[in-house]
């Protein structure tokens, strides 16, 4: 049985700009430190759906197939920040459901993750 698997990724300084271009989400909270601080954030933050994509990739890479994922649900908590390592931890349960979460700086930024792979 699969023990705790970990995927580690550090979003670099320019990641949020690349993801904005790739996804079309140009919300300034992801791109402009000054704007982000003006709405009470510590600075520009990661896109939640980018972080969720890391949780998804942790499953598809382990399965060796980008199409292996049948479903994924997550809850977002706090904020993810550029230039700090994120660890996605996953564990497969008895019924095949994978429980997973993502942590950065000792805080969970994705919790309650549940993934299912195609059988």
């Amino acid at each position, binding site marked *: 049985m699969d023990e705790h698997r970990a995927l580690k990724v550090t979003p670099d300084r320019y990641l949020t700009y690349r993801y904005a271009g790739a*996804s079309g*989400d140009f919300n300034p909270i992801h791109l402009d430190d000054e704007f982000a601080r003006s709405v009470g954030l510590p600075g520009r933050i990661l896109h939640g*759906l980018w972080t969720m*994509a*890391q949780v998804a990739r942790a499953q598809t890479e382990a399965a060796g197939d*980008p*199409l292996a994922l*049948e479903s994924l*649900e*997550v809850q977002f908590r706090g904020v993810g920040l550029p230039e700090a390592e994120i660890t996605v931890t996953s564990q497969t349960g008895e019924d095949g459901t994978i429980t997973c979460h993502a942590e950065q700086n000792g805080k969970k930024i994705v919790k309650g993750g549940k993934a299912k792979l195609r059988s």
Partner: protein
Amino acid sequence: MSHSVTYAVGREKVREYAYAVGESDPRCLDPEAARAAGHSDVVAPPMFAAVYCSGAIGPAILDPEVGIDFARMVHGAQAFTWHEPVVAGDEITTEAAHEDTSERGGLKFFVFTTRSVNQRGELVCEGRWTNIVR
């Protein structure tokens, strides 16, 4: 009220997205590798759903009838179920709808759903988007 948008999946867009999320599988990057695996072109990583859904989910969330206060909105939860693969050249039509608003512990939860089908009418992805207003 529901919002429907058709998104044309481009090969370079899939590659740009794959690069941005750290996806290195050759089936997502190299048309030859994708064809060798039985696909007509590069395969979209699963979370590319965020891209082809955005044109429909954005207006659904912005709909004044729903009444979200954006200054206080955060993305609370997200779920996707994937069906047929999405490959470059596909045209994906997504319908987004406001499903439910509820209140718990002083927070308002706005739940939206998306349903995406390809040009053959085959279901490719179902999404459930939860936005929380503090």
